[in-house]
């Protein structure tokens, strides 16, 4: 899982997804892409650009506004031996697919004793930022983590954007990939050759002995900024872990880190209640059963729907400084407070609409 095994070439997160799909479509003629706007000039944030021209309109095509039936149709095509990739420009619309994904895709293999597996990739984009409001900004990865029979990826690096897509396409099960829109223009090393990011293997992005920061999706960027801020300004060494794969979840790597630090702060680009942060903290607690003191804390969306207006929206999301502040409180304890300066998040600030 070296990030640099392909040399120095870099791609954007979106470019990495596009390359993964194109190379897999080249390799395997059963792979196809369907979803709203995948063959339009914008090309689904650039991730599907050129696919229809290169592979034909029966392998990359637009769909009616029928998320339920289109998901079901993709399941049917998967049962017939194809490998569909179904896209959603906003994860919010996945709610219209829940019956197909939870009642069928996740259960078909089990309830027919292995006779009807569903190799299906579902791409859900989190549409945060610039006034997207309550129905265009949600992240529902935890809904799917709850259900046996479906795998969940949440890559944060361009490297994993490609590796997760390749692994998801090749897997014989339904796989949801949460793609955070704020990551799409981020550059990073991406090998040209095909490779898979393994399921159930977390990535330690930074080492540290004082506190473990587990961050999901876009929050990996904010947690990494917080780790730098903590090191530079208050001398706290944070270990940053990106789970990458949320189901299955690599608890061994997380627990190994917490064993060392004794402190766990989990940050998500979603709500905390019954969410991924709750699951990770619960599993860490079960690991030691009180035999070892472990401080835990979670950060996520404010417990409200997402407001549209910018002054409220900025306080809705966790960010580097709020993560730093929380980590400082856990490490230094005894009522000490630190109000770090807000750290610039270029990917958020640079974004302009309309969509």
């Amino acid at each position, binding site marked *: 899982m070296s990030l640099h095994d392909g040399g120095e070439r870099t791609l954007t997160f979106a470019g990495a997804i596009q390359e993964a799909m194109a190379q897999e479509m080249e390799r395997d003629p059963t792979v196809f892409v369907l979803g709203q706007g995948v063959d339009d000039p914008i090309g689904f944030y650039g991730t599907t650009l050129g696919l229809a021209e290169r592979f034909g309109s*029966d392998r990359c095509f637009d769909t009616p506004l029928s998320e339920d*039936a289109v998901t079901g*149709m993709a399941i049917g095509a998967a049962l017939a031996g194809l490998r569909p990739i179904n896209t959603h420009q906003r994860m919010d619309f996945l709610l219209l697919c829940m019956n197909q994904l939870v009642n069928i895709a996740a259960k*078909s293999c089990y309830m027919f004793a292995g006779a009807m*597996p569903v190799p299906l990739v579902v791409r859900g984009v989190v549409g945060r930022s610039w006034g997207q409001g309550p129905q265009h900004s949600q992240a529902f990865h935890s809904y799917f983590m709850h259900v046996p029979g479906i795998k969940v990826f949440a890559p944060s690096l361009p490297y994993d954007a490609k590796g997760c897509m390749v692994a998801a396409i090749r897997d014989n*099960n339904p796989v949801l990939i949460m793609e955070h829109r704020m990551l799409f223009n981020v550059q990073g090393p991406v090998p040209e050759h095909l490779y898979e990011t393994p399921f159930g293997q977390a990535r330690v992005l930074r080492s540290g002995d004082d506190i473990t920061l587990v961050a999901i999706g876009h929050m990996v960027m904010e947690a990494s900024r917080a780790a730098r801020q903590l090191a530079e300004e208050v001398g706290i060494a944070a270990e940053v872990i990106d789970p990458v794969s949320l189901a299955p979840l690599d608890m061994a790597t997380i627990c190994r880190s917490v064993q060392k630090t004794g402190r766990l702060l989990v940050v998500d680009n979603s709500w905390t209640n019954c969410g991924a942060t709750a699951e990770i903290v619960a599993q860490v607690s079960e690991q030691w059963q009180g035999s070892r003191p472990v401080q835990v804390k979670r950060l996520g969306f404010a417990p409200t729907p997402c407001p549209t207006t910018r002054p409220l929206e900025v306080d809705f999301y966790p960010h580097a400084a709020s993560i730093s502040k929380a980590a400082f409180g856990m490490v230094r304890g005894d009522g000490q407070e630190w109000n770090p300066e807000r750290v610039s998040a270029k990917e958020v600030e640079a974004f302009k609409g309309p969509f």
Partner: protein
Amino acid sequence: MEQTTDSALCERLYRSLYRIRRVEEEVARLYPTDKIKSPVHLSIGQEAPSVAVCDLLEPEDVVFGTYRGHALYLAKGGDLPAMVAELYGKVDGCARGKGGSMHLIDMQVHMMGTTAIVATHIPHAVGYAWALQRQGKPQRVICFLGDGSTEEGVFSESLNFAALKRVPILFVCENNGYAIHSHISARSAQSDIVQRISGYGIPSARVEDGDIFRMREAARTALAAVRDPQGGPYFLEILTCRLKEHVGPKDDWHMGYRSRADIQALLANDPVDQLAARLQPESRQQIETAVEQEIERAFQYAEESPFPEQEELFQDVFA
């Protein structure tokens, strides 16, 4: 019922109808013993649509059906002992006991696994048919559905997609008039399903009188349209009658939500009786004896099959 049908066809249809009805009567008879610990949605009374359509199918044709799926499973050639064992929750069941009556499957005969969520399977059938078309494969997909499913959003979405992509698929609507205890007139302003279908640009037909030969002829026309390389989807509605309660082995005429008088014409045309009356007594006897023996063996097989081992709980969550 027309009088000029050849006896081989009559015997074939009767054997299939009688076999389904007797299997289900056995299920109903045994149900109070609690050996079948699973909801059963019996097809008794509405065997004919499955039998009429499947009689015309090629072995490679693929069928999708509903949780009221015993008739379709058997009409398509599904393994009878595996079905009964599945109802018993035994390891030799067609889904190793993990599915039960609502989730029958036999991939050997292209009987796809059935689902318990009304209408959920309709887009699967469309997607499957689209995939076959894309791969240039000759077999066709037949999607059985009930009248209740026509009210689900995914039904409408799926028909639109099938029409848009000219997907070669035959939808067979088994309209028994009721969604559990609710009559179709209480559920739709436009109870005429074929009338609704015309809006999608999908050709359609309806068989109203319960005559299995008319069902078969309508299915022949429908299948010809679907098999035509220039063809697309086709919708066939068949009026039929569920004689038992929605779920379970009992009659429910006493409940008062429906009456036999409402379906007198369908009852008078019950194809099991109609065909029985047309067969030579010897051939009828031969068919019935063979079927009874087969059923006895199937139930014996299910009785003797073991339950799955405990570790099977964790198997097949993922492929």
